């Protein structure tokens, strides 16, 4: 891995520098700091040995399961072979942020296309070149809304994913922002009565997820938007981009900010990361200047002859504006955005519509079948659901999941095991179904659950 590590090369290079040994390279370091020997991180291993150890000690101790029905914000989606193929080109994955646009037109154009494709899908005007993940995108959205409105209160639906809530709290804590949670109604949607009693001229942002943590699609975004805008608050909506093949995008329903998880667009679960944080706004000049993250724009060559791409509005960013920057973000999730661009280009309108349909059908079917079982019922049975289904059992979910695993199924996420504040008795497990599941898979899950009853 280290071409110049051969003794004769080292000797030759040291000779050029007039040094006797490599320690001379560290003569400027207080000698008490220099270690006698290298750190004990084990002996160097050959490639074949590392492969072996990985296989034996790591891989064998990870479950082997093909049917994954676990919910909670990350799901098993189908990744087209083309996405893997193209994103493994070294020109994409080994390069850095495109600081030198002339040799980096490839990445720049892909990221520009990502911004453009995503803007179309979300019905928004401006999308940045990616943030880390859905949750940090929410953190940035919160800070963005506070900068833009100069207000310091955020109102959110209590059906938010608890991990996202936790990240938002971390991001705005230094600003002393007040966070107000709004309860949900019997259908699992945000309670408009409660919202209207809370939203006033002190609110910077109202945040609602659709689908929310429980998979419920909000059907009243337009009314919520009206409520916000009457008081000068910004409306931020968190989405699952794959629902937007069938559902009207938040941009067309009054959202000022849209965020979401892009892992679903050609990305893998990877035990939770990396992800793709989607961040989009409407095109208001003042807002664009307050945006976090990189932006790619169309430009031209100095001689005016060619259309090209470059990073724009860098004066918002940390490497120029330092502590006045809109965010500290530097490294982002470009390769995930590249994957999403390839994915959206491949699927096109027909592909996106089809995948939305499939997930809706699977969700509806699974929900209906679960409710036909004697010992299970779903939370919010009458809501419009996408992908995620909270299921209530009258037995121990730990036992049920163990049984399902013996059948080759990774079962629901037991909400109370991680978030006891939501379900102290661990009665609810969050299932999810995606386009990878066939009707046969769903029937097999139902059959297996029936055996528990």
């Amino acid at each position, binding site marked *: 891995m280290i071409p110049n590590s051969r003794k004769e090369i080292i000797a030759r290079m040291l000779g050029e520098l007039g040094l006797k040994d490599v320690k001379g390279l560290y003569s400027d370091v207080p000698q008490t700091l220099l270690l006698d020997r290298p750190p004990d991180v084990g002996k160097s291993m050959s490639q074949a040995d590392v492969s072996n150890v990985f296989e034996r000690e790591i891989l064998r101790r990870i479950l082997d399961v093909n049917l994954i029905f676990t919910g909670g914000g990350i799901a098993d989606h189908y990744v087209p072979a083309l996405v893997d193929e193209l994103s493994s080109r070294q020109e994409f994955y080994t390069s850095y942020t495109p600081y030198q646009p002339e040799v980096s037109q490839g990445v720049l154009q892909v990221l520009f296309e990502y911004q453009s494709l995503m803007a179309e899908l979300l019905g928004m005007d401006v999308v940045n070149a990616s943030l880390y993940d859905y949750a940090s995108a929410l953190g940035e959205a919160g800070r963005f809304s506070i900068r833009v409105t100069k207000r310091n209160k955020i109102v959110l639906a209590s059906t938010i994913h608890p991990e996202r809530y936790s990240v938002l709290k971390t991001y705005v804590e230094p600003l002393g922002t007040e966070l107000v949670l709004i309860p949900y109604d019997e259908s699992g949607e945000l309670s408009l009565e409660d919202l209207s009693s809370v939203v006033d001229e002190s609110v910077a942002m109202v945040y609602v997820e659709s689908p929310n943590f429980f998979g419920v699609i909000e059907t009243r975004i337009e009314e919520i938007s009206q409520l916000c805008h009457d008081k000068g608050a910004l409306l931020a909506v968190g989405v699952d981009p794959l629902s937007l093949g069938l559902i009207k995008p938040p941009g067309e329903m009054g959202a000022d900010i849209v965020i979401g998880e892009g892992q679903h667009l050609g990305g893998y679960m990877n035990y939770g990361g990396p992800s793709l944080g989607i961040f989009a706004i409407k095109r208001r000049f003042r807002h664009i200047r307050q945006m976090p993250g990189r932006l790619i724009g169309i430009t031209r060559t100095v001689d005016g002859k060619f259309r090209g791409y470059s990073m724009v509005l860098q004066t918002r960013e940390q490497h120029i504006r330092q502590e006045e920057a809109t965010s500290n973000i530097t490294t*982002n*999730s470009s390769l995930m955005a590249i994957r999403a661009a390839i994915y959206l280009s491949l699927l096109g309108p027909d592909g996106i519509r089809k995948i939305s349909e499939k997930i809706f059908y699977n969700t509806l079917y699974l929900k209906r079948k679960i409710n036909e079982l004697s010992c299970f019922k779903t939370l919010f049975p009458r809501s419009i659901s996408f992908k995620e289904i909270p299921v209530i059992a009258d037995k121990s979910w730990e036992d049920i999941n163990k049984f399902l695993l013996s059948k080759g199924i990774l079962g629901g996420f037991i909400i109370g095991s991680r978030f006891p504040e939501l379900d102290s008795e661990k009665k609810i497990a969050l299932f999810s179904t995606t386009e990878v599941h066939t009707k046969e898979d769903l029937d097999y899950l139902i059959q297996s659950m029936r055996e528990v009853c």
Partner: protein
Amino acid sequence: MRYIQARWEEGDGILEPTVFELGKRGDGGTPIVSVEEELMEEIGSLDEILPENIVRRSINLPGLSEPEVARHFSHLAQMNFGVDSGPYWLGSCTMKYTPKLAMRIASVSKIRRLHPYAPEEQVQGILKALYELKEMLSKITGLPYFSLQPAAGAQGELVGALMIRKKFMDLGEKRDEILIPESAHGSNFASAAMAGFKVVRIPPSDEGTVDLNALRAAINERTAGMMITNPNTLGIFESDVLEIANVLHSNGSYLYYDGANLNAIMGWILLSDMGVDIAHLNIHKTFSAPHGGGGPGAGAVGTTEEFRDFLPIPVISKRDDYYFLDYNVPKTIGKVRMFYGNIGVLIKAWVYLKLLGGEGVRSVSTIAVLNANYARKKLVEMGFEVLYGKDRPCKHEFVLSLSGLKKKYGIRALDFAKALIDRGFHPPTIYFPLIVPEAFMMEPTESDSLREIDGYVNAMGDILRRIEENPEEILQAPKNSAIGRIDDVFGTKKLWLTWKIYENEGR
């Protein structure tokens, strides 16, 4: 050497068309799944199930076939320079080679398809790998506790700054200032500000290092800590680091270490021995995970015992032989991203360190520093100017000032950088650090062979000669890249940020 990048040229001033020009909008594309008829029959029409007011009527994405998409993105890849293309001496970015075994292991299906809420006892393997990575990072830094959660270096900085903030809240002290050297990475300032601190800048000494007198003058009872990188952004080791730590600690303040430049001292110096209290490490720089065109990276944060209880939750712990996600961190700052970190990136560092072993870790830094010193010596002999620290060894990088060329020939660092492109070398970081006029910040890594280093140096010499003969020629560079010199200002003036905006206003 000469390099000619692929250039796909459609004509009329357009290189590769965008997907919106290639495919008809609102129609077509490639369905990758099918909906089973039995399901549709059982459930009925979605039109009747979904309320009309929330149904989408049109999707204006372009519709393309798979071969069209494959060729389009292949063309774009060909118009991009990567680390496997050639030397990439982008200062402070550590553009090293990623062992392909790391790529293969990270793409194993069981890892890729691992759900973050899979039960702990079923994922002992991945937790073990992450735990081992933490242990190896501890051995390398001397910092006993690690969080692997931050998604990037800057997020690690934010975590560190938030931990310091929380620490003083816990102690009941009001300290709201962070000291940062003027030459620091921009993200340090931004992260400290995001965590609610007021930033106090420390000017450099004549040597380019932290000015101890300036530090003593700036420190006071409101100083929470200081963020430094060592070696600093000039590639100079802060030899006074023990005194810096001492000044901070005796004031009750903490020392934060930005690990962007760890590739210079790994295996030689422990951060803990330098008095570091908290540090972030850039997994995508030092530990060979690729940069992905800008990300994703990973920013592991290490701490001393004093900050253990403040780390983000969960931390990965071990009890007997059982690995688990430990949420019992009493004073945690909370979470900065969902789940546990960029696992797909972190696993590559595990592979990298297994391949290297302890000797290899040290050897990485040794050779990176050797390469940098060798290149600097050769360049200085050619007449290039180093403003700071020229009489001492540099570390993994060094900074030239091209201001002489600007005065004499009107050639800026930017022009010089573009001329390197035509010779097959990715330019260095330019105009940073700000304290060096016409800065040329060069970081060869241990991945470059002597032949390539000589090639880079000779290309610099060749450009120098051309400037002396005909500076005009350099102003025209680059000529061999996919596109000629880009006008950055024009793009920022127009703000054509999407195809739709461009279609409406640009054409």
